[in-house]
Each structure stands twice: as structure tokens, then as C-alpha cells.
């Protein structure tokens, strides 16, 4: 990522000096050629320098043997690709990767299905019920991540947690004092409920906003042709919102794949490191276990995966915004 980012960003910045830009059109004729470059200079320099430096540093670290001892002595030991061969040869890495992929797939599927259903429901509601549901969605959306995570710990608390109480009341008595963070599956369950609760409002509200842009005539025409609810969805709503579906799904994939705070705070990747996803794995390996070089190598591998996803997402978005760029 570093190479691409830098190369692409260096271009506008380097041109500032040469001043070889074509004459600007229209209004900007009176202003000098250098003006746009001067305006973007602070943003470009700041982003390229700091982000680029972090990326380069990340790359360098991943080729070093850097543990607690080297950190304290401030020595640099280059070990070539050892961190990568170690990581890739380690079964643990592949298990975590597979876990992250399944985790992301399940969460994104839930978020998209629930979000889209709620979005379509919003479009059908009367004014007052719609406002009510929107209020609920906005409150959940606005809830800060750290506060929400703490609240979910309380909801799912072993003793006096309201979820266990309700399950017990409903007749599932073995859940009365259930420890949600004691198992891999149950910990993931709590994280999933939290992530879905937090992510659905974005999808639902945006989908609803998008449906309001569909011309009514299309539905009238479909109704004249005798199309039912499902047929109207597949022949009008879905084709119209297709770009939206793609873009949102990808955005959710990226967001969920790299979510750190929720996964980490709920159970710190436990029990027995069984709920570590890739970002948490890199963090625990690098910071907690103080294998900084190893952590950096894992983070580079994670960034590569995310970069592939992001590139695809940006292609989708850019196709839609071609005329605007």
C-alpha cells in the first residue's frame, strides 16, 4: 500500500514546484496556476508524510527481530523474511484468517439482510411510525462505540444481566447464570449482536433514502403489468438500487473485517485467544506479547487483504462517480 499511496500522492505535490499545469478554465483564469496546488499542499503533505511514514515503518519493522529485549536495548536486528515465513507457516495464522473471514461473512450477511428489510419497511410506514423507527435507529447509530460495548457487557453480564434474566424467565433455566464470555461461540454471539445493532441503522437509513429517489412511475407501470410485491422488488427496486447494494456491502465488509474495539473490549480475544480476528491477533501478538516484528508482519498481511477489498470497493464507487471526478 505504501508504495502506491506515496507514488500517487507525490505526483500532485511534486508538480507544485514545476508549475507545469495547464491553464485553468472559466473563473479560475485570473488566479495563478499554482493556486490549486498551494491549496491542496497541506492536506497532501500531511497525509503522504505521516501515513507514508507509518506504512514504511510498518514494512521495516516486519523485517526485524524486535522483541522485548531488542526494544529495551534499542538494537535493530534484521532477519529478512523470517517473520513472514514464520507467520505463514504457522497454523495459528491460517486459523485466525479463516475465523476472520467467517466472522465477517456472517456479520455482513446479517447486517445487509436486516438493514435492507428495515429500509424497505421504512418506505412502507406511515409518517408517525416511520419517525419513531428512525429515532430508534438514529439513537443506536449515534451511540459511541466504546459506550455501546460497555453497555453490551452489562446486558450480557453473567450475574444480574438482563439477557440472562429474560432467557431464564422464558423457561431456558440453564441460562440464568450463563457466562457469555466463557466460550468461543457465545463470545462471538455477543460481538455479532453488538455489531449488527450498530451497523444496521446506516444500511437501513441509507437504503430508505435511496428508495425515495426511485421514480413513482416505475412502480405504477409495474402495478399496471400486474406485478406483485416480490416482482416489484426484483424488477424495479433491486435493479435501481444495485449500485447502492454493492457499495454498501463492500463498505460493511471492510468495516467489519477491521473492527477492533468491539472484539477487543468484549473479551480481549479470549477465551484462550479463540475470538481473535486478524486486527486483534496482530495487536495481541505485537503489543501484548511484545513480538513487535511479528505483529508488524501480521499487520502487513492484514493490510494486503484489506487493500484488495478496498481497491475493489473504490472501483465500484469510482464507476458511479466517473463524471464527478
Amino acid at each position, binding site marked *: 500500500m505504501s508504495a502506491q499511496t506515496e507514488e500517487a500522492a507525490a505526483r500532485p505535490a511534486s508538480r507544485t514546484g514545476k508549475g507545469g499545469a495547464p491553464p485553468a478554465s472559466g473563473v479560475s483564469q485570473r488566479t495563478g496556476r499554482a*493556486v490549486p496546488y498551494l491549496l491542496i499542499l497541506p492536506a497532501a503533505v500531511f497525509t503522504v508524510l505521516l501515513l507514508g511514514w507509518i506504512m514504511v515503518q510498518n514494512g521495516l519493522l516486519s523485517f526485524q527481530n524486535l522483541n522485548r529485549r531488542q526494544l529495551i536495548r534499542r538494537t535493530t536486528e534484521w532477519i529478512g523474511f523470517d517473520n513472514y515465513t514464520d507467520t505463514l507457516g504457522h497454523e495459528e495464522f491460517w486459523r485466525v484468517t479463516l475465523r476472520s473471514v467467517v466472522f465477517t461473512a456472517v456479520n455482513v450477511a446479517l447486517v445487509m439482510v436486516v438493514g435492507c428489510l428495515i429500509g424497505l419497511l421504512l418506505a412502507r410506514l406511515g409518517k408517525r*411510525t416511520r419517525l419513531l423507527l428512525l429515532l430508534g435507529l438514529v439513537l*443506536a447509530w449515534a451511540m459511541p462505540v466504546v459506550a455501546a460495548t*460497555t453497555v453490551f457487557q452489562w446486558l450480557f453480564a453473567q450475574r*444480574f444481566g438482563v439477557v440472562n434474566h429474560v432467557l431464564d424467565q422464558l423457561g431456558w433455566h440453564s441460562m440464568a447464570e450463563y457466562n457469555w464470555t466463557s466460550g468461543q461461540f457465545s463470545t462471538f454471539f455477543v460481538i455479532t449482536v453488538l455489531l449488527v445493532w450498530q451497523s*444496521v441503522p446506516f444500511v437501513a437509513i441509507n437504503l430508505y433514502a*435511496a428508495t425515495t429517489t426511485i421514480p413513482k412511475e416505475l412502480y405504477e407501470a409495474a402495478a399496471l403489468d400486474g406485478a406483485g410485491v416480490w416482482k416489484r422488488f426484483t424488477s424495479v427496486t433491486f435493479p435501481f438500487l444495485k449500485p447502492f447494494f454493492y457499495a454498501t456491502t463492500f463498505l460493511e465488509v471492510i468495516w467489519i473485517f477491521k473492527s477492533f474495539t468491539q472484539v477487543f473490549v468484549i473479551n480481549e480475544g479470549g477465551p484462550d485467544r479463540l475470538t481473535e480476528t486478524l486486527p486483534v491477533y496482530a495487536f495481541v501478538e505485537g503489543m501484548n506479547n511484545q513480538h513487535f516484528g511479528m505483529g508488524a508482519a501480521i499487520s502487513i498481511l492484514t*493490510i494486503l487483504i*484489506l487493500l484488495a477489498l478496498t481497491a475493489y470497493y473504490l472501483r465500484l464507487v469510482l464507476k458511479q462517480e466517473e463524471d464527478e471526478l
Partner: protein
Amino acid sequence: MKRSLIGRIWPGATAVVLFLGFVFPVYWMFATAFKANKDIVGDDPVWFPTSPTLEHFEKAVDAEGFWTFVANSFITTAVAVLLSLVIALLASFAIARMRFRGRRSFILVMMMAQMAPWEVMVIAYYMMVRDADMLNSLAPLIAIYTLMVLPFTVLTLRGYVAAVPKELEESAMVDGCTRGQAFRKVIFPLLAPGLMATSLFGFITVWNEFPYVLILSKDPSAQTLPLWLTGFRTTFGDDWGATMAASSLFAVPILILFVFLQRKAVGGLTSGAVKG
């Protein structure tokens, strides 16, 4: 169109159920924060705080270093958001109003940077800050937070700048304003709502940021509220009343801002996300 009774009622009924589901965690946070201890740790949960008390809030506020965390959170958030707004305003004006070579690349870089996985780059940043001997200070936090919110701010402001009719600017310049004056007197006032909505998202991002402050600030003097909140349970040993009071204090500024600016905020987001 004829519909049965159930057919007419179910959307509304589902909406109410969903509303309750989405609101419950937020409600439960506030409810617990106001409940007396005996109502929190009883065999049967008390659904409404019947005898509200402020003791949990007092406990949360009296926790050691609380005001330092508050000050740190406000300083890092305000400085990072303002800094990125100023830098972004310049850049967004250039990309919204001017044609120049490299413009497309610049926008692409901003889009890439917006998607940068900050969560995975903590180790490298930690090493940089450590090498510069700047651990446990606010400056490196402010720098990384500014970097985090800058791309989003640039891209969103671009839309708001582009939405201000060019003619306004042109007529101001015909009337003798310089380009700078036209910007200050005509465009800037029209941009104010956009600036507010954009800064809201920057505010939320920085206010919430957890992994960087977790590793950069081991010393309480440079910690922010997210650390205080996540460490609260350990410090106070499952005192859920106080923990929920702390969560409420943490969430309220954001909830208020968000609900007030919701319309513009959602509008701004959708204008970027939806191009049907």
C-alpha cells in the same frame, strides 16, 4: 387496493417492536445509571428506575483523574477536528472548483487514506512515537487523529463546496471582490452547515478512538475518556451502576450532537454514498 387488517397493521407493529429493540440498550444504560444499587443487583430486574438517584454519577465523576480525562478528550478532539477542517477546506475548495492536473490522483489518495486500516497500524506508530520519546503526551495522538479524520473531511466538504452555486462567487467577483474575499464573504457563510455536519463525524471518530490511546498513553495524565470507560469495570469491580453512569456521561455529548445534526449528517452521508 384492499388489504386485510393484519396486512394493514403489521408494518406499524413491526416498526414498534424494532424501535424497542434498537432503543433498549440506550435506555438500559440510562436506566441503570439512575437506579439505586439494590434495584440493579436484585433477583428481578427493575424495568424503570422508581427511586432515581445520582449517586452513581457522583461516583463516576469523583473517580480519580476524571477531569484530566475529560480535558484530554476535549483537547484532542477539538484540536484534531479544527486542524483537519482548516486543512480540508483549502483542499476541498481546490478540488471542487478548479481543474488541474493531478486532481484526480489527489482525490484517489484521499479515498485510499479514508479507508486506511488504522486499527492495524498501531504497532508501527507506537515505534515511531517511542523513538521520538513522545509517549504519554497528547501531541502524537492529535497528529494521528487529524490524519484519521482529514480524508473524510476533504471528501465531504468537496460536496458542500460544489453545492454552492458558482454564480454567487462569480457575481461577487464581478462586483470587485478578490477570489479570497468572495470565498470569505459569500461561500463561507453558506458552507457553515456543511462544516458543522462534517465536524460532527470527525468529533465522533476522535471521541471514540481507542486502540491508539490504549498503547500510546500508559500514563493517566495523557489518557482520554475511552480508556477511563473501558478500565472502569476493573477499577470498580463490576459496579454496573457507576459504569453505566460513566457510559452515559461519555455518550451524552455525542447523542445530543447527533440527534440535532442528524438530518444534515444523513444527507451528507447519503450524497456521498448513493448515486443511483
